[in-house]
């Protein structure tokens, strides 16, 4: 008897879940799509970290066997081969940086699309998110032609402001991330403008350096923005479903 009561209760709960799921604007596959982008972003950040560490580690290690040539390390072929290796590690680190930029562009574009749709009360599916990003330059651009992760092709259009979720902490976090991303965009613009000049003054060169290091954070800021955006989307979706 008690078991029967329990199963009735469970079924009622399941029905409530199904009803809530139906009321949701965000399809299950859209959530999975954003979650996968999140995993992919983590993966790319880790690979970049690995590549950067390998590049740094290279400087600490002396090539084995190079002491054999009596004429010293300058002539040593092993030393020289080590330089080839260093070039390869630098190339790999640069490539890993571009991959982070691509995923940053992709994740941010998908998350901001989902947020805009759900906030406007429209349903969103993975198919839609895929369509919103598939033919755009930042996602599948041939990165051989692009040298900087802060380059314009990797900077998706930012909204004026993000829709309110009704949760103050989340909204503040979103506004702060959006602001920081916008500043990094401005730094990237400045670095681009300065690079176009034929000759830089000393102070301009210092500005350029600052701007470049600031702009280098664009991909990571986009991933942060995408994460906040995805969270906000879920929050709004949940609230609309419960309403």
């Amino acid at each position, binding site marked *: 008897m008690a078991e029967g009561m329990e199963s009735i209760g469970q079924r009622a709960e399941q029905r409530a879940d199904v009803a809530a799921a139906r009321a949701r604007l965000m399809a*299950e*596959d859209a959530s*999975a*799509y954003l*979650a*996968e*982008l999140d*995993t*992919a972003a983590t*993966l*790319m950040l880790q*690979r970049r970290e690995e590549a950067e560490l390998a590049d740094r580690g290279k400087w600490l290690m002396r090539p084995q*066997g*190079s002491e*054999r*040539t*009596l*004429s010293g390390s300058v*002539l*040593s*072929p*092993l030393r*020289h*081969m080590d330089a*080839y*290796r260093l070039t*390869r590690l630098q*190339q*790999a680190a640069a*490539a*890993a940086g571009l*991959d982070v930029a*691509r*995923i940053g562009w*992709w994740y941010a574009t998908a998350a901001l699309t989902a947020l805009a749709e759900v906030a406007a009360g429209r349903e969103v599916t*993975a*198919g839609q998110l*895929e369509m919103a990003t598939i033919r755009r330059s930042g996602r599948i651009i041939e990165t051989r032609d692009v040298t900087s992760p802060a380059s314009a092709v990797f900077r998706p259009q930012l909204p004026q402001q993000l829709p309110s979720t009704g949760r103050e902490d989340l909204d503040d976090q979103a506004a702060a991330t959006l602001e920081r991303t916008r500043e990094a965009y401005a730094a990237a613009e400045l670095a681009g403008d300065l690079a176009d000049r034929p000759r830089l003054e000393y102070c301009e060169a210092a500005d350029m350096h600052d701007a470049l290091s600031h702009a280098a954070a664009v991909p990571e800021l986009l991933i942060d923005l995408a994460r906040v955006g995805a969270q906000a989307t879920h929050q709004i979706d949940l609230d609309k479903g419960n309403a």
Partner: protein
Amino acid sequence: MTDGTEGATAERPTAAPLTRTASAYLGELDAAADLAMIRREQAVLAERVHWTVIPAGVSRGVDGPGAPLNSPIMQVDGYQYARLQDGLACAIQDVGRVAWWYATAALAALDAVLAGQEITGMRLERLTLLRPGRDEEVDAQAPAWGRCFRPHLPGDGELRTGDDRLDAAMDAALAPLRSAYSAAADLELADVDQDADDCEPPDVELAWLDRAEKAAMRIPDLLIAYARTVFNAAQVTGRRIST
């Protein structure tokens, strides 16, 4: 030292031994060639392994028709694959460069030993330093056989140590190298023809091109094998004369 009138044969000047620095230099080139080939093997394996591992996280990905196509993890896996291919292309190129270097230095060393001149590591360095092939970056987009560096080879019967076994070993190593060079030259001609005709080559020609490409791709390995034989000949000849 000898005065150059005595030697293994009357026609030939006396062979001088390889100096310690020259031996060490060639010994390091030998180690460098091993290292480059191991790194190439690693790159080949990394690329092959990539095909056998299903990317983690894809299972929870986007449901429905065409799911793996939409899955961001799958797509990111494509980025990774492109990086592995780039890494392999670089590793192949590095083997090509070290093979060029080793073969050029070994031939120069044997040549000097046979001419009765002492040769040092410094001199070998100078003979290879500013020559294209040693530090030359090849266009990564070029066909794989086009990335094989081809040093000048001695003509038939040009380099003779007077020791039948050494000479036979050098001839045996030189013959496949010559046919690989001619395969590469054929491919160059075929490349020009294709540009001129701008039409699809027939199947027979494709099979031939494939074979020629495989033969040409072996140039770096054959050069390393040849360099080893020549280095050995230089050491043995030098030692024989000095005792």
